[in-house]
């Protein structure tokens, strides 16, 4: 069984992809496939998709192809990862000040697994905001 990152080609597909997942966190990467930062992120997402298949699914959305969410979700960064659970946006406190999304490319697969698991566990308990296992404020990044 192979897990490739699925592309969603319009807003309705994005909506349905999130709606149909009853007991899984939905991770959506907004960006462009040709963007180097997105390529890096896709690599990590692709690498962990098999490991977290029990509690998370990954989708890729091209923000040029599907511009519906650009304004409402403030998708100004080249690469943005957002989490949803049962048609609800799950925020994650990464220490960056922006709790809505991961707007940079992670470098470590395990970190991404931890984040997805934290989101799933928090969302299962009804939390809208979970705290990232690692603080990604610039203090620790550099």
């Amino acid at each position, binding site marked *: 069984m192979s897990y490739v990152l699925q592309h969603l080609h319009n807003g309705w597909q994005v909506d349905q992809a999130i709606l149909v997942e009853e007991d899984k966190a939905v991770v959506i990467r907004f960006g462009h496939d040709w963007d180097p930062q997105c390529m890096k992120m896709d690599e990590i997402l692709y690498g962990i998709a098999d490991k977290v298949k029990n509690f998370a699914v990954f989708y890729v959305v091209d923000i040029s192809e599907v511009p519906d969410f650009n304004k*409402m979700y403030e998708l100004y960064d080249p690469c943005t990862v957002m989490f949803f659970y049962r048609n609800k946006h799950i925020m994650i406190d990464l220490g960056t000040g922006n709790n809505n999304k991961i707007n940079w490319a992670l470098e470590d697969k395990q970190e991404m697994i931890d984040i997805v698991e934290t989101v799933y566990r928090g969302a299962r308990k009804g939390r809208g905001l979970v705290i990232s296992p690692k603080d990604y404020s610039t203090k620790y990044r550099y």
Partner: protein
Amino acid sequence: MPLPAALQARLAKRGLIKTDEPEKENTDANQVSSGKCPNTSNPYHECSEYCRKRWGSPAETNTNEAHYQQMMLPPGWFLVPDNTSGASYYWNTMTNQVSWLHPLNPKAQITNPVMSDGRGHEVMPNTAIPSPLVGSDEREQVLNIGKHPSLVKGSQKKMQAAVKRKQQEQEARARKKKMDDLDPLDPAAYSDVPRGTWSTGLVDKGDAKTGVDTTANGPLFQQRPYPSPGEVLRRNAAIKS
């Protein structure tokens, strides 16, 4: 021992001491001898209780009119007896204005005569019609014969000042209204931006920059979730329609 003058006067008034009349009589003999209020020539003076008591002239309450009746009439004015009422009124043969009181009396209401057909019943105020007092300088001088010029001029000035004040008030009100229209701190007042309306500047659903709740602030600011994709699509559809 001589008493103080004030005390002496009071005691004399109550009949406790005998007054030495001749001495006091001399001081204001001219006034007492005339037997009427010395302010009768002052058109702004109305005889009060004190005047009547002091000068003992209850019949002189009408002195103003009596005084004016003795005065010379301005040119063109004649005293005409009224057949219906029995009294007499003043009639200006030049302007055809009438007045019950002497035209120089500031209380006089100089009006147009009531029309014989019975339609012009309303009494025009003095200011509406050019009074004979308002005229060329030499005529005014003629009118002021036998009267202190400050009095005549003052009454005219008062009237004109009242009219002027009214106009100024209206102007000020109009100016204030105009000022109210535009707040000086409104950018439209000092720059060429267009005038805003009540809803200008409010975040409209249509031009909202974000899907999050823009009214949340403080500790809630970082806890505002985005709407779900379905909600976003619905909002986009609502904006388009």
